[in-house]
């Protein structure tokens, strides 16, 4: 009986966990409930992914009102993939949060932290499963509002300012998305995404539809921190508590990119967006700019978490580059990078949090000789860095392989060269850490440090195992991504 209701339950369980945590007001209870909710999401997401693996769509009518009148939750290969990613990351981050939050958040606020974590997860899962365009906005705001609070939990006062800036830009982005959805609603008379896709053909070339596409593109790009709309991201990731940085870096922008995919491919249709309009060229140009400008900025950061944040912006460029090709290989590369980058950057932010716990700072100039004091942490960061560069045997390589394939398929040698060239910049910023941590004598401050506790290392290690495993045998991730690409390219029409 339960399995038929999984699409809605995985939103409801974390959504109910949050007020329960507030009612019970205990940090430990909060942790247990947050962990249980995350585990539930992970389990149901994997089971749903298995259900839609061979094609097919699961549709769930909320309140038994048949779509397109009621709100429909609709799961196909594309969002099942994102759901599985969300579930896995949520469990790992929840495991990491216990030790990390105890160190970074005052004890009397722990229950609020876990309540917000559950709300944020519920919002992200909601965005992913819903088949209703306005519902996307509602869940987007649930996850955004809770993530502003989560960022403001950071100890540094700059976290408050970062959270405020994210709130302003995030709200502008979300409002743009509502405007886009509103214009689509006016033109098609429906809010159900599948129904919208079926009706949009008749009004496709009308100006409100073009305006809707523009508003949606700008709004979603703001939420996804697509260059040049990324200004909120570095501060938000750098000053948030470590667990929050890891969680948001691995999930929030990815879910926004999924929304972009959904609107481009399912609602508007690939032929309209990429053939009739030059969106492919725009996306590719912005992606290339993101890869080079953001990665180059990362090289010059003094703060390691900021370095990782700027690197994230460059990596988002890989995903949008894949989307911009609008071919099967490109989409496979882009979608698989949602996962590859999430596990890589999640692990890196977790390890940065481990450094912050012991050293009290993540400034690179204070990490002299860190590898002697914290060998496991540093080895993990190097491994994650290799995946950012895209060394064969790591997950990052798989992405680049597909992106280069897609570029060659599109007949462009220049674009095939781009991911390779931007890897050189990744080498530069990863090398900055290696040089400081491995080739400098430990300072007196660093020499006193001991290795990070297993409560932080094990979750990060689990993600790194995934990085290596899916780098060597990518059949599972690439298989799922290829199915997601098929589902997106098939569209509704």
């Amino acid at each position, binding site marked *: 009986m339960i399995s038929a209701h999984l699409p809605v339950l995985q939103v*409801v369980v974390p959504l*109910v966990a949050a007020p329960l945590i507030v009612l019970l007001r205990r940090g430990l209870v909060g942790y247990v409930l947050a962990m249980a909710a995350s585990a539930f999401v992970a389990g149901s997401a994997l089971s749903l992914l298995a259900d839609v693996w061979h094609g097919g769509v699961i549709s*769930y009518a*909320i*309140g038994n009102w048949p779509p397109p009148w009621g709100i429909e939750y609709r799961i196909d290969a594309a969002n099942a993939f994102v759901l599985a990613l969300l579930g896995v990351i949520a469990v790992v981050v929840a495991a990491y949060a216990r030790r990390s939050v105890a160190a970074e958040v005052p004890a009397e606020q722990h229950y609020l932290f876990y309540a917000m974590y559950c709300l944020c997860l519920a919002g992200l899962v909601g965005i992913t499963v819903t088949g209703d365009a306005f519902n996307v906005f509602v869940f987007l705001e649930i996850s955004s509002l809770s993530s502003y609070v989560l960022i403001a939990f950071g100890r540094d006062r700059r976290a408050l300012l970062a959270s405020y800036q994210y709130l302003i830009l995030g709200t502008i982005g979300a409002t743009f998305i509502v405007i886009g959805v509103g214009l689509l609603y006016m033109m098609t008379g429906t809010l159900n995404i599948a129904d919208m896709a079926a009706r949009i053909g008749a009004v496709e070339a009308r100006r409100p539809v073009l305006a809707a596409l523009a508003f949606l593109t700008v709004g979603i790009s703001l939420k996804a921190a697509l260059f040049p709309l990324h200004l909120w991201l570095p501060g938000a990731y750098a000053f948030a508590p470590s667990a929050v940085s890891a969680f948001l870096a691995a999930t929030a922008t990815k879910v926004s990119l999924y929304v972009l995919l959904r609107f481009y491919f399912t609602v508007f249709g690939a032929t309209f967006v990429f053939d009739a309009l030059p969106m492919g060229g725009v996306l590719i140009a912005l992606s290339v700019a993101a890869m080079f400008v953001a990665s180059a900025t990362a090289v010059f950061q003094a703060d390691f978490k900021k370095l990782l944040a700027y690197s994230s912006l460059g990596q988002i460029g890989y995903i949008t580059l894949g989307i911009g090709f609008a071919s099967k290989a490109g989409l496979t590369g882009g979608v698989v990078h949602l996962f590859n980058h999430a596990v890589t950057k999640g692990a890196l932010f977790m390890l940065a949090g481990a450094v912050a716990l012991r050293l009290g700072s993540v400034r690179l100039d204070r990490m002299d000789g860190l590898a002697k004091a914290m060998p496991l942490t540093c080895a993990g960061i190097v491994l994650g860095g290799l995946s950012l560069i895209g060394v064969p045997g790591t997950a990052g390589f798989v992405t680049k392989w597909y992106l280069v394939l897609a570029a060659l398929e599109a007949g462009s040698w220049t674009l095939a060269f781009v991911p390779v060239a931007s890897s050189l910049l990744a080498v530069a910023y990863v090398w900055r850490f290696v040089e400081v941590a491995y080739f400098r004598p430990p300072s007196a401050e660093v020499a006193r440090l001991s290795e990070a506790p297993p409560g932080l290392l094990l979750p990060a290690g689990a993600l790194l195992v995934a990085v290596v495993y899916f780098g060597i045998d990518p059949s599972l991730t690439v298989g799922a991504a290829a199915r997601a690409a098929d589902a997106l390219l098939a569209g509704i029409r």
Partner: protein
Amino acid sequence: MRNYLVLRVVAKIMIPFMLLYALYVQFHGDYGPGGGFQAGVIIAAAIIFYAIVFGLATARRVVPDWLVETCLAAGVLIYAGVGLVGILLGGNFLDYFVLDRDPVAGQHRGIFWVEAGVCVTVAGVMLKIFYMFAGRRREDDDA
């Protein structure tokens, strides 16, 4: 503002009617404009009015912080609980048709409890926001 006799008397007369009006808006929501959100705001407004006239400390004795936090969490649980009951009775989430043998009566029953949950949460949230902002200035004054 405790010293203004007129305000105190007017407040004492008006607040019961404000609360009553909130209940009217709540229950009339089935037949006309109204509903849980508006009712919750009116309840919160009545208590905020009380707090402005008689002072925050007095209001906190009448509606303590723990009650406010319980309200804002309990309302969401009532709402979600209605949804889950729908599943337990063999329907979908938030399925009101199965809440009664007569589907129309089921719709009635479902929306009644959902609106009750909304009212409790909204009143709780509005009061929580007010308490947080009003209480913070007080700490500043003490310091």
